């Protein structure tokens, strides 16, 4: 079944404070939609990791936050886009232990474990685009 989009919010990630604004928006939506505290913490922490990733490694970018309905449940999808240099070795980055200047090397591999859907597209030409989805559980 096709997901319908219930709301759409675009936010820029240009300053460090924007990381918290993106996270707060995701938290507010998840709370309104009745996510439990564990799902909220997982989603908002994933947003923190990916927004920081875009800010630190991508030189800033944007986050698009959408509420989805797949006919049975509601979800929150967040797309993070940046025009940075891209991720040189995606497989290694997703496997974990990929150490960069200001991250623990757990960012991407750890974040993937927090959400229900995760996809990544990155190249030096296009920059990096990471999409996550978290669904409500019943």
């Amino acid at each position, binding site marked *: 079944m096709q997901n319908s989009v219930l709301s759409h919010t675009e936010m820029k990630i240009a300053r460090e404070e924007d*990381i*918290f604004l993106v996270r707060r928006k995701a938290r507010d939506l998840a709370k309104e939609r009745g996510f439990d*505290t*564990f799902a909220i913490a997982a989603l908002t922490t994933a947003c923190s990791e990916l927004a920081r990733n875009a800010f630190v490694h991508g030189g800033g970018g944007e986050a698009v936050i959408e509420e989805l309905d797949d006919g049975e449940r509601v979800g929150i999808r967040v797309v993070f886009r940046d025009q940075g240099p891209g991720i040189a070795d995606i497989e290694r980055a997703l496997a974990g232990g990929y150490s960069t200047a200001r991250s623990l090397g757990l960012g991407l*591999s*750890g*974040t993937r474990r*927090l959400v229900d859907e995760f996809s990544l597209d990155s190249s030096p030409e296009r920059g990096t685009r990471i999409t996550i989805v978290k669904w409500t559980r019943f």
Partner: protein
Amino acid sequence: MSKSAIPILRVGKNLLTTIHVDLHDRIADAFQAELLLAIEKTGAAGLIIDISGLEEVDTYVARVLADTARMAKLMGTRSVLVGMRPEVAATLVRMGYAMSGVETALDVDQGLSLLAGEALS
């Protein structure tokens, strides 16, 4: 008024700090410096870091907290991280970041008991 605006209180021989704000880069650096200077000034035996007010802790904040405990330890002060919420603990472990090497307790009272060397009931 401290630059980080995070309060540091003296409780007996120990220091207690309660984090209730988003720890971004600038605040994190100021907070660490203020704590270490407070330890030097007071000669605190122990340090309790209360994070019960934090609804999420990402790997950046987790690293700042673990680093702060390590810095205090290098100076000779024992740190205990207290009050981590269930969903925060679950999230950090799922991400593969269990903050190993950092002493923890359920709440401020149990943290103080731990520092005092009392058996936890």
